[in-house]
């Protein structure tokens, strides 16, 4: 079986359309980030969360009013699919007290529908800011590492555009999180540690796809005249199109499985990786390689590549 065999899309010619599309996506995301902001999970804002599961179906409004009457202020949301609710409130040093308060109130007021507190998380404000810092550090360090590695393996133009493509992917997903955050009850899309893990996974994977395309360009561009670059870029991208899409496809398959089966705790992560891989695949063809082309074109330089001996 074969998909995308012997294609001859003129990617380079139409690159401006792709640039425009990317810019619209990015600007929409940034606008949403500026206006609506992000939905931070307790990892980054601090606070306490209680997951309550009922034996039978329960009404959100009723539980909310019971908790209000008991004097526990916070927000209550449906959590996942199965009669579970997530109650979040400000940080409580003593989660035992919070637990008994919630539990007693529900026990007294909602009869005939026993509940169980299946999870309690509490993150103090100092920890939350620690986590935020280490997340930022991890992201920056990974981008730097990728820049260095690709810079050594290829050359600086390839490395820089590769990292620009990663930025593009992560920022687009971040924008999506802001736009879609809180819209769906089955995936709240909160920014927490697992989303940072998703971003790093996206960064690692985005460059994977990009490197496959670069590798082919490197293999074919050696000793060619700059006037031939457009043809070589196009041919290389068409030749690698099939593998780029299939490699992403297998990962998308397994991430989709995670999204469906792994439960609400993993759903935000799965969504981020899913979106990130689609965008990463798109950007490796429509953003990273065309940018290298433009750069070469504008500076009228020819490529001096390293390490293509293996090819």
């Amino acid at each position, binding site marked *: *079986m074969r998909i995308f065999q012997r294609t001859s899309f003129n990617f380079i010619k139409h690159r401006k359309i792709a640039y425009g599309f990317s810019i619209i996506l990015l600007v929409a995301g940034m606008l949403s980030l500026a206006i609506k902001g992000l939905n931070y999970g307790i990892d980054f804002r601090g606070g306490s969360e209680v997951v309550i*599961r009922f034996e039978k179906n329960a009404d959100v409004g009723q539980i909310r009013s019971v908790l209000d009457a008991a004097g526990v202020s916070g927000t209550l949301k449906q959590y996942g699919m199965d009669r579970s609710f997530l109650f979040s409130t400000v940080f409580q040093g*003593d*989660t*035992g007290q919070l*637990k*008994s308060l919630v539990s007693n109130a529900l026990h007294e007021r909602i009869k005939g529908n026993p509940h*169980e507190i*299946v*999870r*309690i*998380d*509490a993150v*103090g404000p*100092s920890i939350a*800011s620690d*986590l935020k810092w*280490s*997340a930022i550090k*991890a992201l920056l*360090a*990974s981008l730097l*590492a990728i820049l260095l*590695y*690709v810079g050594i*393996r290829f050359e600086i133009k390839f490395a820089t555009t590769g990292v620009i493509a990663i930025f593009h992917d992560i920022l687009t997903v971040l924008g999506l999180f802001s736009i879609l955050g809180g819209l769906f009850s089955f995936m709240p899309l909160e920014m927490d*540690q*697992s989303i*940072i*893990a998703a971003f*790093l*996974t996206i*960064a*690692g*994977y985005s460059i*994977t796809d990009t*490197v496959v395309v670069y*590798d082919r360009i490197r*293999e074919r561009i050696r000793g060619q005249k700059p006037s031939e670059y457009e043809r070589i870029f196009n041919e290389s991208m068409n*030749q690698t199109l*099939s593998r780029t899409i299939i*490699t992403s*496809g*297998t*990962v998308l*398959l*397994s*991430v989709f*499985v*995670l999204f469906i*089966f*792994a*439960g609400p705790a*993993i759903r935000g*992560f*799965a969504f981020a*990786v899913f979106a990130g891989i689609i965008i990463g695949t798109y950007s490796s063809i429509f953003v990273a390689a065309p940018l290298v082309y433009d750069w070469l074109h504008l500076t009228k330089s020819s490529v001096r590549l390293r*390490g293509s001996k*293996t*090819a």
Partner: protein
Amino acid sequence: MKNKRFNLLLIIVVTLVSLWSLWPTWRDYSLSKQINGFGSAQDSLKYALSHREEIEEARKKSLKLGLDLRGGMHLVMEVDQVDLFEQKAWNKDPKFIAIMQAVRASAARSDARIIDLLLAEFKKDNIRLSRYFYDIRNSDQEIVSKLEKESVDALSRAKEIIRNRIDQYGVAEPVITTQGSRKIIIELPGVSDENRVRNLLKGTAKLEFRLLREPEVMVRTLDRINSFLVQNSTVPKVSPVPDSSSVAAASLPGSEKVAQAGMSTASNPLYDVVGLSQNGTAYTSERTREYVLSLLRRSDIQALLPMDSELLFAAKPDIGKGGEKLYTIYLVKKGPELTGGVITEAKATFGSQGVQPEVLMSMNTEGTSKWARITGANIGKRIAIVLDGVVYSAPVVQSKIPNGNSVINGIESLEEAKDLEIVLKAGALPAPVRITEERSVGPSLGADYIRAGIQSLAWAFFAVSVFMLVYYKKAGIAANIALVLNILIVLSVLAGFNASLSLPGIAGIVLTIGMAVDANVLIYERIREELAEGKGVLAAVTQGYDRAFSSILDSHVTTLSAAFLLYTYGIGPIQGFAVTLMIGTSASLFTAIVVTREIFHLLLAKNLMTEKSFG
């Protein structure tokens, strides 16, 4: 030929080692299945006892499940460094106390290191640290490094004490580690009584024996505070809840003063909330306790206390006539006569009447002789037994106690007495700790997570392997064999290194399933290209592997470095994800390249491969 044989040998060895490493996990699983399979509990117990060694051996070496899958508690505790540094100072004048208060306030707002904040506050007032810390000749820098060392020591001591407490309480496989200069991370799998564990961990367990002031002194002090409050008109309303003040006053029985106070509320602000009985015992009700506490903490009120004295509350309330809970207030000497450091043994038991739980303590020789001297010199006086700043009991010394025994009573339940026994035996923490992060997962949610994880694994494997078969035909089989080996390697490495598998870890394996076949996709696509150029199968396979290698290496290195950084900067659950992703990615370099290639060689040698084998 030699090289080929080496690869084949390597594959066999890796497979065998993986299976061997996962064998205990399988044994553990089948043994516990067998135990649960018996009809009666007796049979199960009998089987468990007769196979005890085998079961324990298997369990020890089997793949551990993370806290989220087993259910349990994850706690991060922070050592209060401000308190620790305060303890180290030796000349605590009001200036020092003011500075430390400023440090405490700024520590609550910023994430900077406490020692830097401390230094900054002292710099601001142009005071050298040596005025309060260590030797007067020390420079600021020397003192800072000494205090830093002190806090590292305190952290490791606190960790040991917490480990002792947990060991005494009895939790299977606790993991206790330190992070940075003030955090202790505690993982307790399978803990059911979270509240009790929390109380057990957070108490400092600082035990002190302190002399009580005479009742007359107490009465005079309270009078002084009361008249100060009357004069000081800046205190507008005495009670936090206006209407409860009269209720509180009226409900404090057996007190003439309160009765008077009830008549003239405005003139006796203190006695509205504090009752005083004829024998000079002061108390306050549960409702007004917080308010009185905050009142007594004020520095202008503190100044009214007699020299070297402080007011402490009882740990447990007494039940008053009206069923009201009343907390006794004690005026005690500031300096302890003796501290908990001398306690060598503690035992929870029931008291002489057989109903009241209490904790018996014995002391070391030094403590015994001191205790004998103290009790001998204070016959007829009262000595308060203070634990973590609250008074458990304040018995009157009847006679000299020569054998170093003492007892804590005023304890509500035997369970609490047992917990006190544990903390007293483990010793006092060098400084107070507080819980800054807590995550607990109940066992039922853990079971859900396991089910969800296994489902995701199965479906992901199914989807990806079917795709590979359909798309690449025979070559797809090779990739799928490699995939199975890959998963096996990830699990066996986790089991072999005693790492635990968490839900994010499973997510990492699922992601690995998708990524591991990528290398095969790259190779197969390349082989197809070579075949399309008209090369023979053998040449196409060789070229395909050689030419795809560079992009495979690049993509693996980038994924690995991202996962490694995630592991370095991430905490807890995210590290689990990073670990499985790292193992899976490295393993796929081996399985996708070496294993599939070896399979092709075998097939090619037997003429079982044609151009059509690549779909």
